[in-house]
């Protein structure tokens, strides 16, 4: 673990130099420890793949104090690999009219579209980070067989609800946005909803399972083509 200055009132904690499930579990445990402190002087806590950024109240902590405090709090992070997490099921319509890159991926990966769908829905994904857009969750790891680099020419507009792949990561676009990920399907699942008390149904603690549904089911859930 290494703690660096991020700005005059924030520090960043690095837990490793790589992206891995092990690192992600450490970040999640550390995030829980920090949140459980319920310390008002921790103004913002942003977990990501291998780090946590903390903005703190400089009237309560100076840099050396906060560093010492964080080292004390996080010196022994316990990971429970068998911890059961809330699995959220996301229904996806993997049709060609919404899965804009399915045909292209099928060609590149030398797999049938059915195989791509089968592989994408066969795993339960962990959330490694949330950001870029509110509710945009970076999930991993996608099976190597369907891992795809980002598009050379990003799209100006990716429709809300698009389910996408970039390298070994998968994600859902919470709203219309420019982007360069490969689009394989679409969901009616809301990732950022002002009517929810929590704003988003996802946190880094959740796991995601994708389920393939038919066009009719998608439409009946309020999905739009």
């Amino acid at each position: 673990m290494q703690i660096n200055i991020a700005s005059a009132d924030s520090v960043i904690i690095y837990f490793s130099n790589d992206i891995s499930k092990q690192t992600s579990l450490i970040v999640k445990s550390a995030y829980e420890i920090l949140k459980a402190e319920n310390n008002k002087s921790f103004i913002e806590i942003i977990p990501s793949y291998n780090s946590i950024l903390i903005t703190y109240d400089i009237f309560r902590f100076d840099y050396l104090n906060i560093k010492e405090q964080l080292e004390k709090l996080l010196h022994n992070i316990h990971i429970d690999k068998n911890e059961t997490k809330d699995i959220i099921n996301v229904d996806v319509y993997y049709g060609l009219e919404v899965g804009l890159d399915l045909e292209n991926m099928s060609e590149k990966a030398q797999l049938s579209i059915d195989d791509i769908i089968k592989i994408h829905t066969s795993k339960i994904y962990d959330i490694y980070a949330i950001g870029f857009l509110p509710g945009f969750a970076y999930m991993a790891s996608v099976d190597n067989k369907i891992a795809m680099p980002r598009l050379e020419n990003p799209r100006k507009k990716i429709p809300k609800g698009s389910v996408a792949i970039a390298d070994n990561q998968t994600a859902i676009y919470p709203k219309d946005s420019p982007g360069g990920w490969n689009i394989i399907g679409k969901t009616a699942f809301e990732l950022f909803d002002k009517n929810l008390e929590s704003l988003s149904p996802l946190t880094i603690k959740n796991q995601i399972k994708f389920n393939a549904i038919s066009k009719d089911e998608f439409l009946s859930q309020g999905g739009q083509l």
Partner: protein
Amino acid sequence: MSGFEIIKSGIFTLLQDQGRFGLTHLGVTNSGVMDEYAALMAQKMLHNDISSNILEIAFSNVELKATQNTIISVTGAKCEFFINTVPYSTWKTFSIKRGDIIKIGKITQGQRLYLCVKNGFDVEKEFGSNSTTVKENLGGINGHQLKSGDFLAFKRYDKPFNYKLKDQFIPRYDEDELVLRVVLGYQDDTFTKEEKDKFFNSSYTITADFNRMACRLSGEKITSSVDGIISEGISFGSIQIPKNGQPIILLKERQTIGGYPKIGSVLSIDCFKLAQRKVNTKVRFELIDIKLAQQKLKDFYSLFK
């Protein structure tokens, strides 16, 4: 109802406050006033709570009609400012009577002006804040900038009140070169001594790519030994160095995580000054150590405690 009828909204007038906190883990940005000095001075002059809401006005041609008595304060960018066609200078409070028309004409120096009323506007907060973030459709009135025809309610206030800030506390926004103090941090070890020397000894220019999210500069190219990093949390004021070597300073509506290497962060209190500078202004970076930087921030916020 007592309040302001928005006769003309201007192109980009936002209801703001100190920002929306505690949701960055979901990707929701902090938002908040771009120039806290001007905004907090406006609140202080009215003895308002520092978390009160305020209008941030970035373009001219704003016209408000009061339907009840109140007091307002106006700070920030220099502008043509009128009450019922009588011109006044700003950085002071004004007693407003029912029926008065407040008008903001041309902005002559600076980029944003601030207008608040005694005890703030009665607008329901969204997720803890009135700050408008248009791209997230949060805060303000229905998540967007003010529109002509909107109504901003306030509670009637009749007591006489007169406060004018001393000239020495009124900043100028037109010096030849703005100095931005920087604490090194994040990936500063991926920049060699030569690169850091270049960074601190060159003059940069503010480009047109400057908004509430970030300010892109142009000038001497700076190179990090890495092209990208694993995406991580981004602080207010942090300086990203993308592959083209041109610094980007991240501001109030920055994205919460990102993958460009960062050399460190501009002091928040200097970002407030930056918020008032026009395109093509020269800026220069100056190193400050963390201890002194924290003292400067404390000095600043102690003014408003």
